[in-house]
Protein backbone atom coordinates (compact mmCIF):
# COMPACT_ATOMS: atom_id res chain seq x y z
CA UNK A 1 0.00 0.00 0.00
CA UNK A 2 2.83 2.38 -0.71
CA UNK A 3 1.34 5.34 -2.61
CA UNK A 4 4.48 7.46 -2.74
CA UNK A 5 5.50 8.96 -6.08
CA UNK A 6 8.69 10.89 -6.79
CA UNK A 7 7.03 14.28 -7.17
CA UNK A 8 4.41 16.37 -8.92
CA UNK A 9 5.53 15.50 -12.45
CA UNK A 10 5.18 11.76 -11.87
CA UNK A 11 1.87 12.32 -10.06
CA UNK A 12 0.29 14.03 -13.07
CA UNK A 13 1.88 11.99 -15.86
CA UNK A 14 -1.40 10.44 -17.01
CA UNK A 15 -3.53 13.57 -16.84
CA UNK A 16 -4.73 14.18 -20.41
CA UNK A 17 -6.12 17.11 -22.36
CA UNK A 18 -9.82 17.66 -21.71
CA UNK A 19 -9.94 16.02 -18.29
CA UNK A 20 -11.83 17.31 -15.25
CA UNK A 21 -9.73 18.18 -12.19
CA UNK A 22 -10.71 19.13 -8.67
CA UNK A 23 -8.24 21.41 -6.93
CA UNK A 24 -8.37 21.97 -3.17
CA UNK A 25 -7.81 25.25 -1.41
CA UNK A 26 -9.73 28.36 -0.42
CA UNK A 27 -8.22 31.38 -2.08
CA UNK A 28 -4.49 30.65 -1.88
CA UNK A 29 -4.82 28.85 1.46
CA UNK A 30 -4.31 25.09 1.36
CA UNK A 31 -3.62 25.18 -2.36
CA UNK A 32 -1.80 22.23 -4.01
CA UNK A 33 0.80 24.68 -5.28
CA UNK A 34 3.44 22.15 -6.33
CA UNK A 35 1.07 20.10 -8.50
CA UNK A 36 -0.33 23.27 -10.07
CA UNK A 37 3.22 24.33 -11.00
CA UNK A 38 3.78 20.93 -12.64
CA UNK A 39 0.49 21.25 -14.53
CA UNK A 40 1.52 24.73 -15.71
CA UNK A 41 4.78 23.27 -17.07
CA UNK A 42 3.07 20.26 -18.63
CA UNK A 43 1.18 21.94 -21.46
CA UNK A 44 -1.93 19.84 -20.73
CA UNK A 45 -4.89 21.83 -22.02
CA UNK A 46 -8.68 22.06 -22.30
CA UNK A 47 -9.02 21.29 -18.60
CA UNK A 48 -12.20 21.67 -16.62
CA UNK A 49 -11.19 22.84 -13.14
CA UNK A 50 -13.46 22.54 -10.13
CA UNK A 51 -12.07 24.81 -7.43
CA UNK A 52 -13.64 27.35 -5.10
CA UNK A 53 -11.52 30.17 -6.53
CA UNK A 54 -9.34 30.80 -9.56
CA UNK A 55 -6.12 31.85 -7.87
CA UNK A 56 -4.52 35.22 -8.52
CA UNK A 57 -2.82 36.34 -11.75
CA UNK A 58 0.59 34.82 -10.99
CA UNK A 59 -0.14 32.09 -8.45
CA UNK A 60 -2.35 29.04 -8.14
CA UNK A 61 -4.87 28.31 -10.87
CA UNK A 62 -4.11 31.78 -12.25
CA UNK A 63 -0.97 30.20 -13.76
CA UNK A 64 -3.06 27.68 -15.70
CA UNK A 65 -5.41 30.44 -16.86
CA UNK A 66 -2.51 32.56 -18.04
CA UNK A 67 -1.26 29.60 -20.13
CA UNK A 68 -4.78 29.10 -21.58
CA UNK A 69 -4.85 25.54 -20.25
CA UNK A 70 -8.32 25.87 -18.78
CA UNK A 71 -11.43 25.45 -20.90
CA UNK A 72 -13.92 25.70 -18.07
CA UNK A 73 -13.89 26.80 -14.43
CA UNK A 74 -16.48 25.69 -11.89
CA UNK A 75 -16.10 27.97 -8.86
CA UNK A 76 -18.03 29.98 -6.30
CA UNK A 77 -15.95 33.17 -6.23
CA UNK A 78 -13.45 34.37 -8.78
CA UNK A 79 -12.53 37.92 -7.79
CA UNK A 80 -8.88 38.89 -7.40
CA UNK A 81 -7.90 37.68 -10.86
CA UNK A 82 -7.79 40.20 -13.73
CA UNK A 83 -6.78 37.64 -16.38
CA UNK A 84 -9.70 35.46 -15.37
CA UNK A 85 -12.12 38.36 -15.69
CA UNK A 86 -10.70 39.25 -19.11
CA UNK A 87 -11.06 35.69 -20.45
CA UNK A 88 -14.55 35.46 -19.00
CA UNK A 89 -15.79 38.73 -20.51
CA UNK A 90 -14.21 37.94 -23.89
CA UNK A 91 -15.83 34.50 -23.95
CA UNK A 92 -12.53 32.58 -24.14
CA UNK A 93 -13.24 30.85 -20.86
CA UNK A 94 -16.40 29.01 -19.90
CA UNK A 95 -17.37 29.66 -16.28
CA UNK A 96 -19.98 28.07 -14.08
CA UNK A 97 -20.48 29.94 -10.82
CA UNK A 98 -22.19 27.90 -8.12
CA UNK A 99 -22.81 28.48 -4.41
CA UNK A 100 -19.88 27.57 -2.17
CA UNK A 101 -21.85 25.13 -0.04
CA UNK A 102 -23.25 23.47 -3.15
CA UNK A 103 -19.71 23.07 -4.48
CA UNK A 104 -18.48 21.50 -1.25
CA UNK A 105 -21.49 19.24 -0.90
CA UNK A 106 -21.35 18.03 -4.52
CA UNK A 107 -17.78 16.93 -3.73
CA UNK A 108 -18.94 15.29 -0.53
CA UNK A 109 -21.71 13.43 -2.37
CA UNK A 110 -19.18 12.00 -4.83
CA UNK A 111 -16.98 10.85 -1.96
CA UNK A 112 -19.93 9.25 -0.17
CA UNK A 113 -21.18 7.49 -3.30
CA UNK A 114 -24.41 9.47 -3.56
CA UNK A 115 -25.56 10.66 -6.99
CA UNK A 116 -27.17 13.92 -5.93
CA UNK A 117 -27.99 16.26 -3.07
CA UNK A 118 -30.87 18.62 -2.31
CA UNK A 119 -30.06 22.14 -1.19
CA UNK A 120 -32.10 25.33 -0.81
CA UNK A 121 -29.14 27.45 -2.03
CA UNK A 122 -30.03 29.17 -5.28
CA UNK A 123 -33.81 28.70 -5.13
CA UNK A 124 -35.45 31.65 -6.90
CA UNK A 125 -32.18 32.68 -8.58
CA UNK A 126 -30.52 32.02 -11.93
CA UNK A 127 -28.64 29.11 -10.31
CA UNK A 128 -31.94 27.20 -10.26
CA UNK A 129 -32.56 27.52 -14.01
CA UNK A 130 -33.11 24.14 -15.65
CA UNK A 131 -32.70 22.18 -12.42
CA UNK A 132 -35.16 19.85 -10.75
CA UNK A 133 -36.86 21.34 -7.68
CA UNK A 134 -38.36 19.18 -4.94
CA UNK A 135 -40.46 20.32 -2.03
CA UNK A 136 -39.73 18.76 1.37
CA UNK A 137 -41.74 19.83 4.43
CA UNK A 138 -42.98 22.97 2.70
CA UNK A 139 -39.61 24.22 1.49
CA UNK A 140 -38.15 24.07 -2.01
CA UNK A 141 -34.80 22.43 -2.67
CA UNK A 142 -32.66 22.19 -5.80
CA UNK A 143 -31.34 18.83 -6.91
CA UNK A 144 -27.61 19.16 -7.54
CA UNK A 145 -25.54 16.31 -8.97
CA UNK A 146 -22.41 14.82 -7.42
CA UNK A 147 -19.27 15.88 -9.26
CA UNK A 148 -17.55 13.46 -11.57
CA UNK A 149 -13.85 14.34 -11.63
CA UNK A 150 -11.01 12.41 -13.27
CA UNK A 151 -8.49 13.67 -10.74
CA UNK A 152 -8.68 15.37 -7.37
CA UNK A 153 -5.56 17.26 -6.35
CA UNK A 154 -5.24 18.21 -2.69
CA UNK A 155 -2.74 19.67 -0.27
CA UNK A 156 -2.35 18.31 3.25
CA UNK A 157 0.00 19.18 6.10
CA UNK A 158 1.13 15.64 6.89
CA UNK A 159 0.62 12.37 5.17
CA UNK A 160 1.96 8.86 5.50
CA UNK A 161 3.13 6.55 2.74
CA UNK A 162 -0.28 4.79 2.82
CA UNK A 163 -2.01 8.06 1.89
CA UNK A 164 -3.53 8.93 5.26
CA UNK A 165 -3.76 12.71 5.53
CA UNK A 166 -3.87 15.39 8.21
CA UNK A 167 -4.59 19.02 7.38
CA UNK A 168 -3.56 22.12 9.29
CA UNK A 169 -5.88 24.93 10.41
CA UNK A 170 -8.14 26.53 7.76
CA UNK A 171 -5.91 25.10 5.02
CA UNK A 172 -8.23 22.12 5.43
CA UNK A 173 -11.17 23.81 3.62
CA UNK A 174 -12.16 21.88 0.45
CA UNK A 175 -9.24 19.44 0.58
CA UNK A 176 -10.86 16.57 2.53
CA UNK A 177 -14.07 16.51 0.47
CA UNK A 178 -12.19 16.77 -2.80
CA UNK A 179 -9.75 14.06 -1.74
CA UNK A 180 -12.78 11.76 -1.38
CA UNK A 181 -14.27 12.74 -4.72
CA UNK A 182 -11.64 12.05 -7.37
CA UNK A 183 -11.43 8.89 -9.45
CA UNK A 184 -7.73 9.34 -8.83
CA UNK A 185 -6.59 11.50 -5.92
CA UNK A 186 -3.17 13.11 -5.74
CA UNK A 187 -2.05 14.49 -2.37
CA UNK A 188 0.93 16.75 -1.86
CA UNK A 189 2.13 17.15 1.72
CA UNK A 190 4.59 19.22 3.69
CA UNK A 191 5.70 16.23 5.75
CA UNK A 192 5.69 12.64 4.57
CA UNK A 193 5.97 10.06 7.37
CA UNK A 194 5.95 6.29 7.83
CA UNK A 195 2.78 4.34 8.72
CA UNK A 196 2.23 4.49 12.46
CA UNK A 197 3.59 7.97 12.90
CA UNK A 198 0.16 9.55 12.50
CA UNK A 199 -2.33 8.85 15.29
CA UNK A 200 -5.22 6.94 13.68
CA UNK A 201 -7.63 9.05 15.76
CA UNK A 202 -6.28 12.23 14.19
CA UNK A 203 -6.44 11.29 10.52
CA UNK A 204 -8.78 13.51 8.49
CA UNK A 205 -8.63 11.65 5.16
CA UNK A 206 -8.21 7.86 5.29
CA UNK A 207 -5.66 6.58 2.78
CA UNK A 208 -8.25 4.56 0.86
CA UNK A 209 -9.22 7.80 -0.87
CA UNK A 210 -5.65 8.72 -1.85
CA UNK A 211 -3.84 7.11 -4.78
CA UNK A 212 -0.60 9.10 -5.03
CA UNK A 213 1.26 11.09 -2.44
CA UNK A 214 4.45 13.12 -2.53
CA UNK A 215 6.32 15.57 -0.37
CA UNK A 216 6.49 19.11 -1.76
CA UNK A 217 9.55 21.22 -1.13
CA UNK A 218 9.79 24.90 -0.19
CA UNK A 219 6.14 25.81 0.07
CA UNK A 220 5.55 29.44 -0.76
CA UNK A 221 2.10 29.63 0.98
CA UNK A 222 1.38 33.06 -0.35
CA UNK A 223 -0.96 35.25 1.71
CA UNK A 224 -3.76 36.96 -0.19
CA UNK A 225 -4.86 39.57 2.39
CA UNK A 226 -2.24 40.23 5.05
CA UNK A 227 -4.17 41.80 7.92
CA UNK A 228 -2.48 42.48 11.25
CA UNK A 229 -2.86 44.53 14.41
CA UNK A 230 -0.17 46.51 16.15
CA UNK A 231 1.33 45.29 19.39
CA UNK A 232 0.35 47.62 22.24
Amino acid at each position, binding site marked *: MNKVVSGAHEAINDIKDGMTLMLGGFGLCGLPEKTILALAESGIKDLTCISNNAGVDDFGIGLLLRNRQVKKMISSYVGENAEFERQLLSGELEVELIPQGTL*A*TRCMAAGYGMPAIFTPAGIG*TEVAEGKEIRNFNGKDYLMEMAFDADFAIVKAWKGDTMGNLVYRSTARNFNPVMAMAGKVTIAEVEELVEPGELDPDHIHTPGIYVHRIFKGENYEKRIEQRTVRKKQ
Partner: protein
Amino acid sequence: MLDKEGIAKRIAKEVKDGYYVNLGIGIPTLVANYIPENIDVVLQSENGLLGMGPFPFEGEEDPDTINAGKQTITKLPGSAVFDSAMSFGMIRAKKVNLTILGAMEVSENGDIANWKIPGKMVKGMGGAMDLVASAENIIVAMQHVNKAGESKLLPNCTLPLTGIKCVKKIVTELAVLDVLPDGGFKLVERAPGVSVEDIKKATAGKLVVEGDVPEMAI
Protein backbone atom coordinates in the same frame (compact mmCIF):
# COMPACT_ATOMS: atom_id res chain seq x y z
CA MET B 1 -26.48 59.79 9.66
CA LEU B 2 -24.21 56.87 10.53
CA ASP B 3 -20.83 56.03 9.09
CA LYS B 4 -19.80 52.42 8.47
CA GLU B 5 -18.58 52.04 12.05
CA GLY B 6 -21.91 53.38 13.29
CA ILE B 7 -23.84 50.82 11.25
CA ALA B 8 -21.62 48.09 12.67
CA LYS B 9 -22.11 49.41 16.22
CA ARG B 10 -25.90 49.38 15.85
CA ILE B 11 -25.92 45.84 14.43
CA ALA B 12 -23.72 44.65 17.29
CA LYS B 13 -26.68 45.32 19.60
CA GLU B 14 -28.59 42.53 17.81
CA VAL B 15 -25.94 39.98 18.77
CA LYS B 16 -27.07 38.04 21.84
CA ASP B 17 -25.28 35.96 24.45
CA GLY B 18 -24.72 32.39 23.27
CA TYR B 19 -25.00 33.16 19.56
CA TYR B 20 -22.99 31.57 16.79
CA VAL B 21 -22.66 34.35 14.21
CA ASN B 22 -21.52 34.45 10.58
CA LEU B 23 -20.20 37.84 9.46
CA GLY B 24 -19.93 38.70 5.78
CA ILE B 25 -17.28 40.83 4.12
CA GLY B 26 -17.27 44.64 4.49
CA ILE B 27 -19.33 46.40 7.17
CA PRO B 28 -20.41 43.06 8.73
CA THR B 29 -16.77 42.27 9.53
CA LEU B 30 -16.61 45.48 11.59
CA VAL B 31 -19.44 44.23 13.83
CA ALA B 32 -16.94 41.97 15.61
CA ASN B 33 -15.25 45.09 17.05
CA TYR B 34 -18.43 46.19 18.88
CA ILE B 35 -19.77 42.97 20.39
CA PRO B 36 -20.10 43.69 24.13
CA GLU B 37 -17.43 42.01 26.24
CA ASN B 38 -19.93 40.66 28.75
CA ILE B 39 -21.58 38.33 26.24
CA ASP B 40 -20.31 35.05 24.89
CA VAL B 41 -20.36 34.86 21.08
CA VAL B 42 -18.63 32.48 18.64
CA LEU B 43 -17.87 33.74 15.12
CA GLN B 44 -18.17 31.28 12.25
CA SER B 45 -16.07 31.71 9.14
CA GLU B 46 -17.52 29.64 6.30
CA ASN B 47 -14.19 28.48 4.94
CA GLY B 48 -14.15 26.22 8.00
CA LEU B 49 -13.63 27.81 11.41
CA LEU B 50 -15.63 28.38 14.57
CA GLY B 51 -14.07 30.76 17.05
CA MET B 52 -12.53 33.37 14.79
CA GLY B 53 -10.22 35.67 16.72
CA PRO B 54 -8.76 39.11 15.91
CA PHE B 55 -6.12 39.83 13.30
CA PRO B 56 -2.67 38.47 14.29
CA PHE B 57 0.06 40.73 15.60
CA GLU B 58 2.57 41.84 13.00
CA GLY B 59 4.98 39.02 12.26
CA GLU B 60 2.63 36.34 13.60
CA GLU B 61 0.54 35.88 10.45
CA ASP B 62 -0.16 32.24 9.59
CA PRO B 63 -0.88 31.61 5.90
CA ASP B 64 -2.89 28.51 6.92
CA THR B 65 -5.26 30.56 9.11
CA ILE B 66 -7.55 32.88 7.21
CA ASN B 67 -11.20 33.96 7.24
CA ALA B 68 -13.77 33.86 4.46
CA GLY B 69 -12.47 37.22 3.23
CA LYS B 70 -9.01 35.61 2.86
CA GLN B 71 -7.64 37.85 5.61
CA THR B 72 -5.09 36.50 8.08
CA ILE B 73 -6.78 35.95 11.44
CA THR B 74 -6.20 34.09 14.69
CA LYS B 75 -7.93 31.22 16.44
CA LEU B 76 -9.14 31.43 20.03
CA PRO B 77 -9.15 28.96 22.92
CA GLY B 78 -12.06 26.64 22.04
CA SER B 79 -11.82 27.21 18.29
CA ALA B 80 -12.71 24.34 15.97
CA VAL B 81 -11.61 23.76 12.38
CA PHE B 82 -13.60 21.70 9.87
CA ASP B 83 -13.94 21.16 6.14
CA SER B 84 -16.08 23.27 3.82
CA ALA B 85 -18.85 20.67 3.48
CA MET B 86 -19.34 20.54 7.25
CA SER B 87 -19.20 24.33 7.38
CA PHE B 88 -22.16 24.62 5.06
CA GLY B 89 -23.77 21.66 6.78
CA MET B 90 -24.00 23.64 10.01
CA ILE B 91 -25.31 26.64 8.07
CA ARG B 92 -27.95 24.57 6.23
CA ALA B 93 -28.96 22.82 9.45
CA LYS B 94 -29.58 26.25 11.06
CA LYS B 95 -26.99 25.85 13.80
CA VAL B 96 -25.70 29.36 13.08
CA ASN B 97 -27.97 31.79 14.97
CA LEU B 98 -27.33 35.03 13.11
CA THR B 99 -26.05 35.93 9.66
CA ILE B 100 -24.95 39.48 8.87
CA LEU B 101 -24.15 40.36 5.30
CA GLY B 102 -23.99 43.22 2.83
CA ALA B 103 -26.30 43.84 -0.13
CA MET B 104 -26.50 45.82 -3.34
CA GLU B 105 -30.32 45.73 -3.28
CA VAL B 106 -33.08 44.48 -0.99
CA SER B 107 -36.72 44.28 -1.98
CA GLU B 108 -39.74 44.97 0.21
CA ASN B 109 -40.53 41.24 0.37
CA GLY B 110 -37.03 40.41 1.65
CA ASP B 111 -35.32 39.38 -1.59
CA ILE B 112 -31.62 40.20 -1.72
CA ALA B 113 -29.18 40.84 -4.58
CA ASN B 114 -25.48 41.05 -3.79
CA TRP B 115 -23.40 38.94 -6.15
CA LYS B 116 -23.51 40.14 -9.72
CA ILE B 117 -23.92 43.22 -11.89
CA PRO B 118 -24.47 41.90 -15.42
CA GLY B 119 -21.79 43.11 -17.82
CA LYS B 120 -19.84 44.86 -15.07
CA MET B 121 -18.98 42.71 -12.10
CA VAL B 122 -19.00 38.93 -12.06
CA LYS B 123 -17.12 37.74 -9.03
CA GLY B 124 -19.48 35.03 -7.88
CA MET B 125 -21.79 34.37 -4.99
CA GLY B 126 -19.30 32.61 -2.70
CA GLY B 127 -21.24 31.34 0.30
CA ALA B 128 -23.93 34.05 0.20
CA MET B 129 -26.58 31.96 -1.56
CA ASP B 130 -26.16 29.10 0.92
CA LEU B 131 -26.34 31.48 3.86
CA VAL B 132 -29.46 33.38 2.79
CA ALA B 133 -31.29 30.21 1.72
CA SER B 134 -30.93 28.58 5.13
CA ALA B 135 -30.43 31.21 7.82
CA GLU B 136 -33.54 32.21 9.74
CA ASN B 137 -32.08 35.37 11.22
CA ILE B 138 -30.50 37.56 8.54
CA ILE B 139 -29.49 41.18 9.05
CA VAL B 140 -28.35 43.21 6.08
CA ALA B 141 -25.79 45.98 6.56
CA MET B 142 -25.92 48.37 3.63
CA GLN B 143 -26.00 51.93 2.37
CA HIS B 144 -29.57 53.18 1.89
CA VAL B 145 -28.79 54.73 -1.51
CA ASN B 146 -26.12 54.03 -4.14
CA LYS B 147 -23.45 56.46 -5.32
CA ALA B 148 -25.88 57.92 -7.87
CA GLY B 149 -28.31 58.67 -5.03
CA GLU B 150 -30.77 55.94 -6.03
CA SER B 151 -32.51 53.88 -3.38
CA LYS B 152 -31.26 50.35 -2.75
CA LEU B 153 -34.45 49.46 -0.85
CA LEU B 154 -36.77 48.66 -3.71
CA PRO B 155 -40.23 47.25 -4.55
CA ASN B 156 -38.36 44.55 -6.52
CA CYS B 157 -34.67 43.89 -6.99
CA THR B 158 -33.34 44.75 -10.45
CA LEU B 159 -30.05 42.82 -10.15
CA PRO B 160 -29.73 39.01 -10.27
CA LEU B 161 -31.01 37.62 -6.98
CA THR B 162 -28.96 35.92 -4.29
CA GLY B 163 -32.02 34.67 -2.41
CA ILE B 164 -35.73 35.25 -2.00
CA LYS B 165 -37.86 36.29 0.99
CA CYS B 166 -35.02 35.91 3.42
CA VAL B 167 -33.97 39.32 4.81
CA LYS B 168 -35.53 40.09 8.20
CA LYS B 169 -33.78 43.30 9.24
CA ILE B 170 -31.79 46.05 7.54
CA VAL B 171 -29.46 48.58 9.11
CA THR B 172 -28.38 51.51 6.92
CA GLU B 173 -26.72 54.88 7.51
CA LEU B 174 -30.25 56.31 7.88
CA ALA B 175 -32.37 53.75 9.66
CA VAL B 176 -33.17 50.36 11.13
CA LEU B 177 -35.96 48.64 9.21
CA ASP B 178 -37.76 45.33 9.60
CA VAL B 179 -39.01 43.49 6.54
CA LEU B 180 -42.68 42.69 7.25
CA PRO B 181 -43.90 39.13 6.63
CA ASP B 182 -46.50 40.46 4.16
CA GLY B 183 -44.04 42.83 2.49
CA GLY B 184 -42.87 46.37 3.20
CA PHE B 185 -40.04 47.99 5.13
CA LYS B 186 -41.19 48.89 8.64
CA LEU B 187 -39.27 51.84 9.98
CA VAL B 188 -38.05 50.87 13.45
CA GLU B 189 -35.43 53.49 14.30
CA ARG B 190 -33.95 56.64 12.76
CA ALA B 191 -30.23 57.37 12.75
CA PRO B 192 -29.21 60.42 14.80
CA GLY B 193 -30.19 63.63 13.00
CA VAL B 194 -32.22 61.85 10.30
CA SER B 195 -35.94 62.60 9.87
CA VAL B 196 -38.72 60.27 8.79
CA GLU B 197 -39.01 62.45 5.67
CA ASP B 198 -35.32 61.84 4.82
CA ILE B 199 -35.89 58.10 5.07
CA LYS B 200 -39.07 58.24 2.98
CA LYS B 201 -37.17 60.07 0.23
CA ALA B 202 -34.41 57.47 0.23
CA THR B 203 -36.72 54.42 0.19
CA ALA B 204 -38.20 53.38 -3.17
CA GLY B 205 -40.01 50.33 -1.79
CA LYS B 206 -43.06 50.45 0.46
CA LEU B 207 -42.15 52.14 3.76
CA VAL B 208 -44.38 51.50 6.76
CA VAL B 209 -44.26 54.20 9.45
CA GLU B 210 -46.30 53.70 12.61
CA GLY B 211 -46.44 56.31 15.37
CA ASP B 212 -43.32 58.06 16.60
CA VAL B 213 -40.14 56.47 15.31
CA PRO B 214 -37.40 56.65 17.94
CA GLU B 215 -33.87 57.78 17.23
CA MET B 216 -31.42 54.90 17.65
CA ALA B 217 -29.26 54.79 20.73
CA ILE B 218 -25.69 53.76 19.92
